[in-house]
């Protein structure tokens, strides 16, 4: 595993450039590795990461600082980016540019507290490129979380999928914005959005705002958004098997959040996320 902001990259792996306000890393073609990025070491600099052709890299981000990260993903590369946050909320902006046949999977396990502004822009620039985004977020006390995910389909046969799951408790606020744009001539492209927020208290505020902007006829697009209280039929079903109402509600809530764990590879992260969920739910 490479600790990107601590280690020096060897020439076989790639190169690093440091400017006054920007850090730039470029991975050579066909690199297959795991990379850890500690956001606390960024010191508010913009970070650009380029993965050239046919790279297979798992990026794992930790740390709580504000960040602005730009990933440039080369042809035939398969990139995974996972992020886990459990302390103070921050402002984070991500941009991903995907070339032909590039494949991106992103998962964000968001259990931070306080206010958070999270923005992701995924540009499917090359034909046959594909991006999958998954989020699990939990807001409690007076947290205010705004998460915006947008996909731009710019070429033919591109695919995007967004799955945002949120749980809002106490006086907290969750706002999901999802925008999928399919440009003219991006034929055979598919865009799917799914946003669900479960609210626990009357004082919660939750909003899911899905937008599809389609400028091409030969496409597939769907969106689903659900904001509401816990399903009483589900609670009854579990209680009818002997679970108490609070156990049933806990299991259903965990069911909203737990699937994010599957996106993380290392056991340590899986454990930390499970502990964060258990503690907050």
């Amino acid at each position, binding site marked *: 595993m490479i600790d990107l902001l601590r280690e020096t990259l060897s020439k076989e792996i790639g190169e690093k450039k440091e400017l006054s306000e920007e850090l730039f890393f470029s991975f050579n073609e066909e690199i297959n590795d795991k990379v850890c990025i500690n956001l606390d070491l960024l010191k508010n600099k913009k970070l650009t990461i380029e993965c050239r052709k046919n790279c297979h890299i798992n990026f794992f981000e930790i740390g709580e600082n504000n960040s602005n990260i730009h990933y440039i993903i080369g042809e035939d590369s398969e990139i995974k980016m996972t992020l886990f946050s459990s302390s103070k909320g921050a402002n984070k902006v991500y941009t991903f540019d995907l070339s032909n046949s590039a494949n991106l999977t992103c998962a964000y396990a968001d259990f931070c507290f306080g206010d958070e502004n999270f923005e992701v822009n995924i540009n499917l620039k090359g034909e046959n490129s594909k991006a999958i985004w998954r989020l699990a977020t939990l807001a409690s006390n007076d947290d205010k979380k705004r998460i915006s995910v947008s996909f731009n389909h710019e070429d033919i046969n591109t695919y995007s999928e967004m799955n945002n799951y949120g749980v809002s408790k106490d006086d907290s606020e969750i706002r999901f914005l999802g925008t999928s744009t399919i440009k003219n001539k991006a034929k055979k492209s598919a865009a799917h959005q799914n946003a669900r927020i479960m609210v626990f208290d009357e004082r919660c505020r939750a909003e899911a705002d899905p937008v599809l902007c389609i400028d091409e006829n030969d496409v597939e697009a769907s969106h689903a958004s659900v904001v509401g209280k816990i399903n*009483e039929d589900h609670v*009854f*079903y579990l*209680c*009818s*098997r002997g679970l108490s109402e609070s156990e049933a509600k806990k299991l259903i809530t*965990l*069911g909203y959040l*737990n699937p994010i764990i599957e996106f993380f590879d290392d056991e340590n992260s899986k454990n930390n996320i499970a502990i964060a969920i258990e503690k907050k739910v």
Partner: protein
Amino acid sequence: MKTLVIENLHVNVDDKEILKGVNLTIKENETVALLGPNGHGKSTLLAAIMGNPRYKVTEGKILLDGKDLLAMSVDERAKSGIFLAMQYPSEVPGVVNADFLKAAINSCREKPIGLYEFYRQLESASKTMNISMEMASRFLNEGFSGGEKKRNEILQLLLLKPDFAMLDEIDSGLDVDALNCVSEAINNMKNQSTISFLVVSHYARLYQLIRPTRTAIMINGRIVIEGGPELISRIDKDGYEWLKYELGIEIKKEDHVDMRTTSIGSCAVKETIKK
């Protein structure tokens, strides 16, 4: 000796009275077939016994060995040995079947079940129900076919071993092999324990396989006649019209349900109260 006594039970759903004074007693080792036309309250009775909060009991009693079931929460009723295999089991996304089954088993035990013992029991019940162990790692009923859902209900019945089980149209959506598998599991439970069953079905086939000891017929929200298994054959042959001529019971026709707004597999009572 476990006995369930229902006395003068009146139940409203969304302020519409569905059950209008049900009286029924079920003793241990009994298998009672509950029949009746669509929309006359069979599922409502089962849901009210289990304690579904949508079904409001306005009058009457339900006693389990003299204990007031209506004063208990849903989970307390389950822990007392009541089980309802539902007509439309909920799909609960994100809740893993095995986690749920383990939590359900543990809710009825003082000491949590060990992992090995749990998997041993699960494997045995899955084999009986001809369910792949892979289903245990899927989300609860999510994406299950109609038949898989029903078999999963019986799998839960086998694992939880209640004293009193209610089966609400467990045979709907089952193919012949699955129906035989479900019936065999029910018969084995009957042979190996003192479990009693209250079984709702529209079809004589299930009853032929599980051989009820008694039959009760529900019309207009009341049990109008009780008898032996021969009543099932009569209804299978002649329908319910003869009750009108022989007993003078006017069978209230099901309220008209707009066919454009309903579908096969909808509960007639639920559709009616929507109106």
